[in-house]
Every structure is written in structure tokens, then in C-alpha cells.
């Protein structure tokens, strides 16, 4: 399973819901293996992932995933056969056990031969460390376990593209760590596109990041390049500096500032979050990596 050099290409994607313009001409070409989609609430992340996941049609523009154009019926079907999609709020059939739910999704993914399907369900449940819980009703599982059940359904079959909408939302730090571990195990040469609010997730898992803001791409490049936007623009001070673009009180009681440092300030190494915050605080314009 080798994905193409440009596994994801979006060209001028637009999408509106009534008067709300969710996407305003999203354009990017991604060659990354694990691509993080960052952006605040309402940035258009979920809409973009739904379009790439073939769940929703755009109003304008085009998208190609794994070299397939979802607007074409044959391409769409072929893409769906190679796609694993995790919605932001995965729903579950009432009364299903973890095994039954993943089995149900496996049927939707064309696993019609029962024995082979059940073997595959057991395989993916083992991948997410849920073999022991496979017979438990989903309503009796914790939120983190439910998330893993949904992830198991995404991993069914040999999926070349995984589209994950906020997969770590609602997970505690240990569960997030476990999720990262699972993703690193199953990643391989798959293309993974995941949206998140967590810059730590992107820093830990992604080799490419796309920042969406108000329905448009504001940045695309390696995470290090996003962090580098704040190079020489992060400093600490005992008091809040009103001239700073952003500032917050750190754990040691000092104030971390992002912006244009005053003369003589000692700057710190920026994090991905610094770069991201600085980017979103800046006037709206695309920033090259």
C-alpha cells in the first residue's frame, strides 16, 4: 500500500450552509504522511474533512484524494474502498456491543463473508487494545473506549487514507498518548489527515500541518516551520506586557509573551502553539512555509 506523492489536493473548495460560508476557496496540496488540520472552532475543518471523506459535496472547487476525484461516481466508490473516516461525533447503533458495532461497519465496508469479516473485526479490536472488551455494550464503555471502538471501525481493511475529525477530543492525557501510540503503529505508509485543536497532537504525530481560519488556508508546511513563525518573538517577563500580541501566565507565575519583544528582552525557543497563536492573531493572509 503506497500512497501517491500528492495524496490530497484541494483546489478552490467552497461550501456554504445557508448564509454561512464554511469554506472560502480552500487550496492546498499535501505530500505528508500524517497531516494535521489545525484551526479554531468554525474554521471549516469538519466541512473540509467531510468533503474529503466523500460525505459531503462541495459547492465549488475540486478535491482529489489518493488520485481520485470524489465528484466522479467510479472514483468516489474506489476512494470509499480505500478510505477510513472517523466523524467528529461518531454515533453508535443502540444496544450494540463493541464487536457488533465494528461488525456492522464492516458490512458497510463490503465485508460480506461472515467468517473473514469477524476475523477482521477481531484484528482491529486487538489493534486498539479492546479485545477484552469486545463483548461489552458500547453504552457501558468509557468515552475513551468508545473513541477507540470508533477508531477500530476506521481501521477495517487495508485503508490507504485515514480521515479523522478531532480523534483526541474528550480524551484524557493517558488516552491521548494511547491514541498517538495506536496511530503510530497503524500509520505506516498510509496517509492520515486529522483535525485537532491540540497543537501538541500535531507536534507529536504530524509531518505536515495545514492551518484553516475562517474557511481559508492560512498556513501549510512542516510543524517546525509553523513554530518558526514565532522565532525571536517569544519572551518571558514578570509582568504582563501590554504591547505583546498575546500573553498568558505560565505555571511559574511569569508571563509568556508572543509578539514583538521589547528591546533587551531575552527570547525563548518558540513552540508550535506560539507559531499557531501568532498566525491566527496576525492579519488574515496566507503565510508560506
Amino acid at each position: 500500500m503506497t500512497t501517491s506523492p500528492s495524496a490530497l489536493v484541494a483546489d478552490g473548495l467552497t461550501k456554504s450552509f445557508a448564509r454561512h460560508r464554511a469554506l472560502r476557496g480552500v487550496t492546498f496540496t499535501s505530500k505528508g504522511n500524517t497531516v494535521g488540520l489545525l484551526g479554531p472552532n468554525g474554521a471549516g475543518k469538519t466541512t473540509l474533512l467531510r468533503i474529503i471523506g466523500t460525505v459531503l459535496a462541495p459547492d465549488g472547487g475540486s478535491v482529489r484524494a489518493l488520485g481520485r476525484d470524489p465528484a466522479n461516481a467510479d472514483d468516489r466508490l474506489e476512494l470509499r474502498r480505500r478510505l477510513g473516516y472517523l466523524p467528529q461525533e461518531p454515533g453508535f447503533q443502540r444496544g450494540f456491543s463493541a464487536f457488533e458495532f465494528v461488525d456492522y461497519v464492516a458490512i458497510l465496508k463490503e465485508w460480506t463473508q461472515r467468517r473473514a469479516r469477524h476475523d477482521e473485526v477481531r484484528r482491529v479490536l486487538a489493534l486498539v487494545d479492546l479485545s477484552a472488551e469486545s463483548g461489552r455494550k458500547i453504552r457501558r464503555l468509557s468515552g475513551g473506549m468508545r473513541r477507540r471502538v470508533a477508531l477500530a471501525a476506521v481501521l477495517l481493511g487495508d485503508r490507504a487514507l485515514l480521515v479523522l475529525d478531532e480523534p483526541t477530543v474528550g480524551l484524557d492525557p493517558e488516552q491521548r498518548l494511547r491514541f498517538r501510540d495506536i496511530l503510530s503503529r497503524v500509520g505506516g505508509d498510509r496517509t492520515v489527515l486529522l483535525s485537532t485543536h491540540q497543537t501538541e497532537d500535531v507536534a507529536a504525530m504530524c509531518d505536515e500541518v495545514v492551518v484553516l481560519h475562517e474557511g481559508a488556508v492560512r498556513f501549510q508546511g512542516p510543524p517546525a516551520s509553523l513554530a518558526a513563525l514565532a522565532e525571536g518573538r517569544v519572551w518571558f517577563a514578570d509582568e504582563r506586557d501590554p504591547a505583546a500580541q498575546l500573553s498568558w501566565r505560565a505555571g511559574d507565575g511569569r508571563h509568556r509573551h508572543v509578539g514583538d519583544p521589547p528591546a533587551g528582552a531575552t527570547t525563548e525557543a518558540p513552540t508550535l502553539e506560539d507559531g499557531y497563536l501568532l498566525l491566527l492573531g496576525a492579519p488574515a493572509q496566507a503565510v508560506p512555509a
Partner: protein
Amino acid sequence: MSSTFSEWHADDRLIERYAAGVLDPATAASVEAHVLRCRACRTTVAGHAPAARLALAWSAVTERIDDPSPGLVERSLRRLGLTESDARLAACAPAMRLAWLAALVAVLLFCVVAAAQGDVGPNLFMVLAPALPSIGVGLAYGPWTDGTYEVGRAAPYSAVRLLFLRTAVVLAVTFVLSGAAGLVVPGHRNGVVLWLIPAIALVTGTLALSAWLPPAWAASVTGGTWLAAVVAYWKSQGSVDPIFGPAGQVAAGVVFLVACLAIDRARRVHAYDVRRFL
């Protein structure tokens, strides 16, 4: 080999032949009786057990444990000839849930009881019965009624096939229950059949609209339009009987044909498969 049981152990050659299943029945039974009591020999047997045979046995055990037990609806559908996977997908329709079925029975019972107590009942049944199947179809599949709808949209299984599969199941159940109620509604001659063509017209209308609207919306449009029109007629004329006369049946037939053409057209342009909104 020692003379006391606790110290005797089957030799490797014997164990190997036992594990391979080539011993004669009497010797095999004797070795088995010993192995069940002797931890050391059990360990030796484990070492000789053919991996492929063990894997097969283990797979059969896990398969038996994991195999989801089908519910009543799913079992019935399989008896009717649906494949195991189609029966599972159809039986998971929200409209097959006990709550919907209970509500359906309650509405029909209310119609029957109301009919027994006055003039309103027969008309009430004839107003409601045609709309019930399309409401069931609206609940069978869609973003607000099916928790796995979004996952299903991204899967290769055909959305239109799933919608029509569930529609067939909903229709079968609703027609049987409504038909049974129609048999016992007093005061309405032919009440058991006259609502059928309008009901089929409303369902096909709902399916046609479902190409562009979520099925629940589509059912609201068709069911709402039907109820508003028929209740208005009832209020003005004092009876709904003329609606179910020959002219009404022909009109319902025309709606059915137009809806069928619209469904065919929508299917050809993949309208069921490409969603503009969720």
C-alpha cells in the same frame, strides 16, 4: 514408566501420536484420561499440538463467542431469504426499534378504539394509515435518526440500496399492522385496502424527495402535505371517503408514477450518493 499413577508419564512418542490424533480409540481414551489429571503431560501435549489445528479450534471458539446473536427482526428477515449482511443492515433501521413499533401499534389501536366509539374513528384511520409508512421510511435512514449515518456515507455500501432495503422492511411491518387494524376498524367498508395506494404514493414520494433532502425531512413534507390536505377536506366536507374514491385512487397512482420516474432520474445522476448538506 513407574508403577504408581502419580509418577507415570506418557512417553513423548505416545504423546506425539495422541496429539496428532492417530492413536486407536481405546489407547487415545486412556491417554486422554491420564492427561486430564497430569499437568506435566498436559504441558508435553501442548508442545506437540499442531499449530494449524489449534488455531482452527481457537478460531472456531472465538467465532462462537463473538458471533452477534441476531434479534427477532433480523432472524425473520433471514428466514425470508435476505443475506446475513443485508438482514443486519435492514434490522438496524431506527424504525425497527421497539419504540417506533410500539408507537405505531398505539396509534392504530387509538384509531380502532375511536372508531368503535363514534364517527371520528373511521375517518381518523383513513387519514393516518396512508401517512404511517412514509413516516417509518423517514425514520429508517438519515443523519438525525441513524447514529452511523455519517460513517455509512463514507463507506462503499450503496446509500440508495440501504435506503430501499430499509424501506422494504418498514413497509412490510407497517402494512401488516395497518392492514390488521383496517380489518377491525368498524364503520368503514373496504378500509383494509383503500388506503394502500395513497400510502404507496406517499412512500414513493418520500423516497424521491430523499434524493435531495434527508429522509426525515422528505417524510415530513409528504406526510405533512397529506395530513394538511386531507384534514382540510374532512373539515369542509365532513368525511374523507371521496378522497379514497376512484378519482382519488387514480390521482394517487399518478403521484406514484411521477415519483417512480423522479427516483429513476435521481438514481441515474447519483443524487442519493452525493449530499449537499447533512
